[in-house]
């Protein structure tokens, strides 16, 4: 194996052979899966048209978005920050591995790792849900097209959410060139977004400035929270812990998230390409 695939293979080897990546992923995943399973049947009534979605797809989506998203965020910070912190980026670049090429290889490795984890997690959660709520899986054949549409939208929401986690982690680690800085910034990003969604309306009332209300629809966390419902108006998705949701439509949510993804990627590429490597 040579060239870019070899570079991606090297990155996957580093991810695979570090036990901390496995232990962290398993702990977070197990915790989130448990909460998702417990919340799956909440408030469901017989004859609910969104029964399958509420019983299966939403817990699955939450598990993937949060359970895979948080470890992916941490992993992406570690994958970038570690190279700078250990000084190994110096060796790699000094051997002719282009800075941007290395960044793209790391992103490709993160995508592969995230996809593999999401597949395994999805299958495990699906099986667990089938054991917990076998009745929910008895959906009538007539609902098959609605279910597949719901599944597609949930998949889109999961994909955007995981991409946002990976690119956010990469961007902040590239900026700070350290794991501590990257984790500090990446892990507070979504909590700050969620708190802002609660605080901004109050701020708007107290200051009598509607400007604050106008900020909320453009926060990354809020748009990811509301993605499933925004894409399918009228459907009541399962809420996971505290996840305030701004009133936006599906197109707005996708565009805002896409803008954030483009900004994270552009910033990462620019910071990587432009800066010298001193330490």
């Amino acid at each position, binding site marked *: *194996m*040579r*060239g870019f695939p*070899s*570079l991606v*293979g*090297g990155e996957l*080897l*580093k991810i695979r*052979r*570090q*036990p*901390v990546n496995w232990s962290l992923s398993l702990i977070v995943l197990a915790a989130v899966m448990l909460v998702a399973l417990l919340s799956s049947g909440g408030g469901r009534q017989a004859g609910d048209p969104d029964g399958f979605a509420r019983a299966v797809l939403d817990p699955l989506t939450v598990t993937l978005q949060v359970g895979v998203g948080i470890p992916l965020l941490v992993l992406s910070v570690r994958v970038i920050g*570690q190279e700078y912190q*250990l*000084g*190994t980026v*110096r*060796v*790699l*670049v*000094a*051997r*002719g*591995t*282009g800075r941007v090429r*290395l960044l793209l290889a790391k992103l490709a490795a993160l995508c592969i790792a995230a996809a593999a984890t999401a597949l395994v997690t999805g299958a495990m959660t699906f099986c667990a849900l089938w054991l917990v709520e076998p009745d929910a899986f008895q959906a009538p054949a007539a609902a098959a097209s609605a279910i597949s549409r719901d599944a597609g939208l949930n998949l889109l929401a999961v994909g955007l959410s995981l991409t946002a986690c990976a690119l956010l982690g990469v961007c902040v680690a590239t900026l700070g060139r350290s794991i501590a800085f990257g984790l500090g910034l990446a892990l507070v990003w979504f909590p700050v977004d969620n708190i802002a969604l609660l605080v901004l309306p109050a701020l708007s009332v107290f200051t009598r400035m509607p400007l604050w209300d106008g900020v909320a629809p453009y926060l990354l966390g809020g748009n990811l929270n509301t993605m499933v419902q925004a894409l399918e108006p009228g459907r009541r998705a399962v809420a996971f812990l505290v996840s305030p949701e701004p009133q936006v439509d599906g197109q707005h949510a996708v565009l805002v998230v896409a803008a954030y993804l483009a900004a994270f990627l552009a910033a990462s590429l620019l910071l990587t390409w432009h800066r*010298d*490597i*001193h330490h």
Partner: protein
Amino acid sequence: MPQVPDHGDSPILELDGLCRSYGGRMVVDHVDLVLRRGEILGFLGPNGAGKTTTIRMALNLVRPSAGTVRILGHDVWREPRRVLPRVGALVEAPALYPNLSGRDNLRAFAMAVGGARTPTIPQLLEVVSLTDRQDDRVRTYSLGMKQRLGVAIALLNDPDLLLLDEPANGLDPLGIAEMRDLMAHLAAEGRAVFLCSHVLREVEAICTHVAIVDRGRLVHAGSVDEVLAGTGEFWLRVREPEQVLALLRAEEWGRTARLHEGRLVTPSPTGEGRDLCAFLAAAGHPPDALDRFRHDLEDVFLRVTHVAEDAP
């Protein structure tokens, strides 16, 4: 500007008017150097002289403010992917993945370099005497073992040029001797070695050429023999040095005779050692030992750098 002399072969490394400034302060100031196959260049200088910045520019880690670095005839900044896989480097402390084993570290770097085949990894581990510890995590390694693994990583892909910054750091005397042998072996195979070190005796023992930088400028360069060559004098060990010194100074050819670090240094009547020996024997002071006088690299270093000026 002094340059390492041309030996006829096409150069492996060429620094041409290399400059780097930070905030208006010149850290590397128009450095010109040429290094060819089979040469081991000792790159010396006081702390802050610009050695590491020069190495970083040669490795595409820091962008030069002016000038060029060419490796195997290609500009490093323009064609890094073409030439840098042919360069092995150990810059400052060895940079390794502590949670990976020694073998996995080599594998990870080999996959990034993209050219090293798996069978080379056991060979490299053997070269640096780490075969027995290859499965242990690097965080359990001593500094010397990490240094040796760093050298193994530098040797991945069979490089034409090795840039080594303090490779003897953390090595015990046996490890230092092995490192010296390894460098001599690599140079004998036709590679070029660019060695940055503070251990001047090691540089004197290993290197074929030296270049000394001070305050960013190249202040002295040449082959070790040229740099250390004396002025045709000899050093002597005799039983009564003061009496012999007086005897020598009484001669027209011996007026510059002197005691240097406990040894008697003097010209010869004809420029030949045997004639000096015959003169002393005839005067009743046959020497116990006699050899051509060479400068010490430390003397040369202190003479051409500002370290001597700053000394109390």
